[in-house]
């Protein structure tokens, strides 16, 4: 099965005799390493924007109605007269925060960065199957990022209907001001984003299937590659459905169709749309929306599998079970979408089916968790910052996963649906886990990306501030939700009219949450500083800093087109021969042939 990439590919010749210009090297680059970095830089920028948005609305939630210089600094007098943000702006901030975090940071940033960086490196290829498409994928991502940012500056404000942009709210500018120009830009941005994601994913799939080096069979692939490969397949199957949902919404908005609209009177105007269904949109949206959770999560799990094994100096426990559980999760992710819709008025029997399939996902997830934990058992753990973040990931994956059991249970969902319990759940399982995975990836592969080392001490400071801040935000948030507080509320003053005790509890918790959120946000400044400082001033990286087995560490540290000078490496073993009995060192790179009498795992 393993396709053999030969020298006939031609890249090797080309890199010798043409000097790259600044534009072709740094801007319109077709080199996978550079494109990976471009994705990372863009995503980091978008992530910082989304984080600032979250701090802004956390301030509103903790101290409603109190003027804040910080808020007025960012929003100005138009949207925050006297430093108190307007209701509409609050919804806009929440919406754009969610959109950027889910799509631009965790999809573009995680999958885009690390698939690009690691797929060619870890399978032993000179580059992606199509460098040009790869470049296109980044530039589409870039354009969609610009559009999304631009949407925050239009006069009527950004999209304000939540990141899920349910119609009719998102279809009717009369219903909320953000559904005007802001929403139009949102839809254009997302459509271009989807194109970017599709082009990227197709490229990843083709590359993994066709360009593996000699000896790199599918069962010798590092788990990272398995994760990116499966993620790409999920993306290819589900993103087009979101595109169709977005296109139908555009038509409802611009062409007077009635896909999602029926029997509506809004702003005193009786619309003629009849026969459409807002529920249809939700089905289409969540057909992507749920797999999207795994598009975000699986790459993080892949990265952490690699890191936990390297830094425990032990093979990952249950390599095949890990692959099997990724496959099972990927398959199940397509047949659980309606668990987001238990209380939409959907047929209850249909609900039961989705309860069943959703809870099944807990089984492969549990297998993964236990395998991670067993990998630590009797290891020889080295706490690099990447390893710390990986342990943080496993912890968040558990804490967020178990609350999923409650939300997946339709009967229990009735009560906590759309409350802060849900917000806490998905932030822990998808936000924290995936962000921890991303940080782990950045710390671990930074030497590979930039040829420099990041500062370890700052890495430690960053990790401990982040995990304390993150749990400090999201544990209390579960309680806000259980107290019944609905999400996307500008403030909770309404509680004063009927339950002053609940009001007090919600306010107390909101203050705690916001304080931790600000601490966590400041903690990220440590990372940003470390990241940029190390790119320019960090100490030079050795070739294989973490004593790792995979192929990317056999390539020279210097940036070069084609990755390896001379022949491509040949693979003789799986990537997890750490501390193998009988070996001299505690790691055996994949390129080392089996010794006499040595059994391959």
């Amino acid at each position: 099965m393993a396709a053999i990439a030969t020298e006939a590919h031609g890249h090797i010749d080309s890199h010798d005799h043409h000097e790259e210009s600044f534009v072709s090297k740094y801007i319109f680059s077709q080199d996978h390493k550079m494109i990976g970095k471009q994705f990372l830089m863009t995503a980091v920028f978008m992530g910082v924007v989304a984080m600032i948005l979250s701090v802004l609305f956390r301030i509103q939630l903790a101290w409603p109605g109190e003027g804040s210089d910080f808020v007025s600094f960012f929003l100005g007098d138009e949207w925050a007269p006297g430093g108190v943000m307007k209701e509409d702006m609050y919804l806009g901030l929440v919406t754009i925060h969610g959109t950027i975090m889910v799509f631009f940071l965790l999809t573009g940033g995680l999958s885009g960065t690390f698939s690009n960086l690691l797929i060619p490196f870890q399978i032993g290829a000179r580059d992606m199957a199509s460098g040009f498409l790869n470049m296109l994928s980044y530039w589409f991502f870039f354009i969609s990022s610009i559009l999304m940012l631009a949407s925050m500056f239009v006069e009527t404000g950004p999209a304000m209907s939540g990141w899920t942009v349910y119609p009719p709210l998102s279809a009717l500018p009369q219903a909320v001001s953000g559904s005007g120009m802001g929403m139009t830009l949102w839809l254009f941005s997302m459509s271009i984003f989807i194109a970017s994601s599709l082009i990227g994913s197709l490229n990843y799939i083709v590359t993994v299937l066709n360009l593996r080096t000699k000896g790199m069979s599918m069962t010798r692939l590092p788990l990272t590659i398995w994760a990116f490969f499966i993620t790409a397949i999920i993306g290819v199957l589900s993103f087009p459905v979101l595109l169709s949902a977005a296109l139908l919404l555009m038509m409802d908005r611009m062409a007077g169709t009635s896909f999602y609209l029926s029997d509506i009177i809004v702003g005193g105007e009786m619309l003629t749309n009849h026969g459409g269904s807002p529920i249809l949109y939700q089905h289409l949206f969540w057909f992507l929306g749920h797999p999207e959770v795994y598009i975000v999560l699986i790459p993080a799990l892949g990265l952490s599998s690699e890191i936990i094994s390297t830094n425990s100096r032990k093979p990952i426990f249950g390599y095949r079970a890990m692959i099997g559980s990724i496959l099972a999760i990927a398959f199940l992710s397509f047949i659980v979408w309606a668990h987001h819709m238990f209380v939409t008025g959907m047929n209850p029997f249909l609900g039961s089916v989705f309860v069943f399939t959703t809870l099944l996902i807990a089984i492969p997830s549990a297998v993964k968790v236990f395998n991670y934990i067993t990998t630590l058992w009797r290891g020889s753990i080295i706490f690099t910052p990447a390893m710390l973040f990986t342990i943080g990931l496993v912890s968040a994956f558990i804490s967020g996963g178990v609350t999923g059991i409650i939300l997946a249970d339709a009967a229990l969902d009735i009560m906590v649906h759309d409350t802060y319990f849900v917000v806490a759940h998905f932030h822990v399982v998808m936000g924290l886990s995936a962000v921890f995975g991303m940080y782990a990836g950045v710390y671990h592969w930074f030497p590979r990306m930039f040829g420099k080392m990041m500062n370890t001490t700052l890495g430690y400071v960053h990790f401990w501030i982040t995990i304390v801040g993150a749990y400090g935000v999201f544990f209390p948030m579960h309680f806000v939700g259980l107290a019944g507080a609905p999400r996307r509320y500008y403030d909770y003053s309404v509680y004063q009219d009927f339950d002053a005790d609940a009001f007090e509890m919600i306010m107390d918790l909101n203050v705690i949450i916001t304080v931790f959120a600000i601490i966590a946000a400041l903690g990220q400044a440590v990372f940003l500083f470390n990241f940029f400082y190390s790119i320019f001033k960090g100490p030079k990286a050795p070739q294989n800093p973490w004593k790792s087995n995979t192929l990317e560490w056999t390539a020279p540290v210097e940036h070069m087109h084609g990755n390896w000078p001379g022949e491509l490496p040949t693979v003789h073993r799986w990537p997890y021969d750490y501390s193998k009995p009988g070996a001299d060192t505690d790691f055996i790179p994949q390129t080392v042939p089996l010794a006499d009498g040595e059994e391959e795992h």
Partner: protein
Amino acid sequence: MISKLIVLAVIVLGVVLVAQLMKLHELSSKLGGKSEAEISDRHNKMNANLMIVFILALFAGFIWLMVRFGWTGRGMAASVHGHELDWLYNLNFIIVLAIFFLTHIVLFYFAFKYVRKDGVKAQFFAHSNKLEMIWTVVPAVVLAVIIILGLQTWNNVTAEAAPESIRVELFSKQFDWTARYAGEDNTLGKFDYKLTTDDNELGLITTNTLDSAIHHMDNGTSGIKALEEKLNDHTLALSPTDRDKMMTDLDRKGRLIRLLHQMKGRHDAKVDAYAWDDIIQKDTLYLCVGKEYEMNFRSKDVIHSAYFPDFRVQMNTVPGLTTRFKFTPDITTKDFRKTKNNPDFHFVLMCNKICGGAHYKMKMTVVVLEENEYNDWLESREFETFKDKYFASK
């Protein structure tokens, strides 16, 4: 402005400060001859210890939250099915918390215990079918229990309401709720959004409302005739955009009135009675303790969600679609106040689906009464049926 400059200055100075500290740190580590790739035993040990400190702090914090806000922070349920849900909740929480605590103890303990030590090599332990079988089967069994119990409850909660249950409609729009009681016949009057006028906010169908809707569409202040007149009036100077707007409006109303005439053609006067005895109620929803209610939800504009936290009820209201939820309140407001120790407490209906700027203010007070109090209230509304109100406004 000055405060903004100060903020910026502080940020810039902060970055410069850290940069200087970094340089210092790097110089000193260069002197010591250590590289970033090698993690010293001291650092390793420190992180291992922090693992234990962290997990203890996390558990302590979590337990503090549970103590401070009462187990899982929910108040008591106030409906029949709510108690069933709460029981299931508690069971699920026990299972979930057990998993959370056990796995976290193991995870962080291993991270602490197996930190690198001189001369101790990691054990090459790549897989074990037996272990993997155990942690596939055990979760599967636990989940089977959760699924079976969950689906039983779900089926009970979502089953059809009994025929004698009281029908009430909750009508949502930006940003308030209106209730409609089905009246003596316990049958809600039929409705169509096209019949919505000022004196028929819910668009109920009767012969009179149909006629009046048609009349309104034709002769209202911005009805078809008025629009046509304006468009044909050559003395009026209309901007092209205004003209376009009015043309679209006219077109839309033309389509609507054709539909209204069709509806009128099909209308059966017998259904009028269903609507005439309905009682429309704003601000406060009155319910009778121990009676089963079938709530019918409608929306005028966007999706809202009817959320009664204390009754453990939630259902979206969807334009173009009627959704339903049945429940039986089993404690009066008065008694519930005693359990809460809060004389000002009220049950509430909130909106729980983002619906626009004032989403957070969209609520309705709910009062659960004893049967005799409830009957008194009904009697007080005897002459306030839709029919009474409709003709009174004429």
